[in-house]
């Protein structure tokens, strides 16, 4: 399988695959992850504060998104949004769908992390004269974020790999690019193994960043 010709193909295609990884896959995951975290914090805060009506809307959002496959959500957006007169390029559409999808999962992570902050922290905030939003911003969210960090990072790592589903709505990302190269040479398996290795490299780097991040966030109680 790994004859001279295949090796040459692997070497020559590596930069092309990596290029789409760096140009499309990682930006797609990074932007969608950031947006999903914003959605997650807002949805978690609504539930934590038990705001009527908004809370029910958030529950319905989480119910629908967690109850349907990501691939189906991508398809519904791809074929459905143009019917509503919304024209977006497939990359933007993928960013939106991935953000909304991951936001529902991360919202539950954030909610649990906020509920894990002892009630005394909130009470102490009120007693020094802070209002609800000030307590959220300075006390509850920082502590909750620290608790949620490993789970949120898990979500990011999953998302890097799930971006390959964007190929189904014509986004040419790293996996689609690999398929194209493989199609030209009819030499599929070695290239798929190669792209798998690139995903593995990405996720290894992210895992390393996660460890560093946890060390930095875990510094309450380490004398500076």
């Amino acid at each position, binding site marked *: 399988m790994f004859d001279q010709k295949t090796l040459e193909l692997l070497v020559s295609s590596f930069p092309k695959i990596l290029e789409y990884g760096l140009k499309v896959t990682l930006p797609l995951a990074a932007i969608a992850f950031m947006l999903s975290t914003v959605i997650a914090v807002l949805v978690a805060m609504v539930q934590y504060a038990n705001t009527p009506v908004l809370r029910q809307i958030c529950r319905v959002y989480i119910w629908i998104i967690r109850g349907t496959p990501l691939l189906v959500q991508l398809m519904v957006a791809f074929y459905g949004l143009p019917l509503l007169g919304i024209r977006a390029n497939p990359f933007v559409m993928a960013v939106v769908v991935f953000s909304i999808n991951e936001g529902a999962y991360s919202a539950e992570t954030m909610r649990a992390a906020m509920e894990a902050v002892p009630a005394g922290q909130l*009470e*102490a905030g009120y007693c020094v004269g802070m209002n609800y939003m000030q307590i959220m911003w300075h*006390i509850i969210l920082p502590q909750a974020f620290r608790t949620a960090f490993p789970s949120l990072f898990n979500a990011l790592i999953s998302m890097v790999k799930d971006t390959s589903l964007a190929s189904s709505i014509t986004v040419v990302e790293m996996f689609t690019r690999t398929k194209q190269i493989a199609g030209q040479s009819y030499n599929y398996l070695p290239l798929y193994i190669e792209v798998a290795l690139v995903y593995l490299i990405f996720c290894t780097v992210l895992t390393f960043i996660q460890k560093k991040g946890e060390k930095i966030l875990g510094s*309450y109680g380490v004398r500076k």
Partner: protein
Amino acid sequence: MALLEVKNIQKAFGENGVLKGIDLTVEKGDVVSVLGPSGSGKTTLLRCINFLEKADGGSLSFEGKEYDLSRITKAEIADIRKKTGFVFQNYNLFANKTVLGNVTLGLTSARKVAKAEAESKAKEVLAKVGMAEFADYYPSQLSGGQQQRVAIARALATDPSILYFDEPTSALDPQLTAEVLEVMRELAREGMTMIVVTHEISFAKEVSTHVMFMADGNVVEEGTALEFFENPRMDRTREFLRLTSN
């Protein structure tokens, strides 16, 4: 005119009446100790006065303004809280903030005081409780007694008219209790107005101007510290003092 006057405050958790119409008057400079067995409602009283629990009824007047406790607004609560300080049994220091951050946050965030000014105020109150050299520590690096002294500094930083203490030494061993009580004694000497819910009978005897003894959601007896300890009128009080003095 009294600094704080609470009339007929009531609170029930479900069917269980915890405060059955308590009155309390605190003049400026008073140190009021609230004593009583566990479950008597003394902590709930303090939490209702600072709105950590919502009272079912009664009225509260603070610095000359009168409020109906069942109808008080969020804005009114916020106004009152800006002039009060609260010290918890479990300290409740902000875990993600250093000692300095804990003490300055009420100033910088809630009162928009400039950072430099807040820090100089924080250092002043930390020095007062003997914690100045721990400014960069996180709460988890401190002993319980140290945490409680920081909590007192945090409450003092905003120059409150009155300080509430909810069993401030109940989670501490005798040595750490002594260091916290010393700080409170000093505050009392300086004329700080305080309500102290406590089990420390000898501290109450030594420091308070007034004592209130509660049982089952009612006030059994109250009076000046001298009257209360030297001449208790009620059997229930005598029984309590006899048991706790041994």
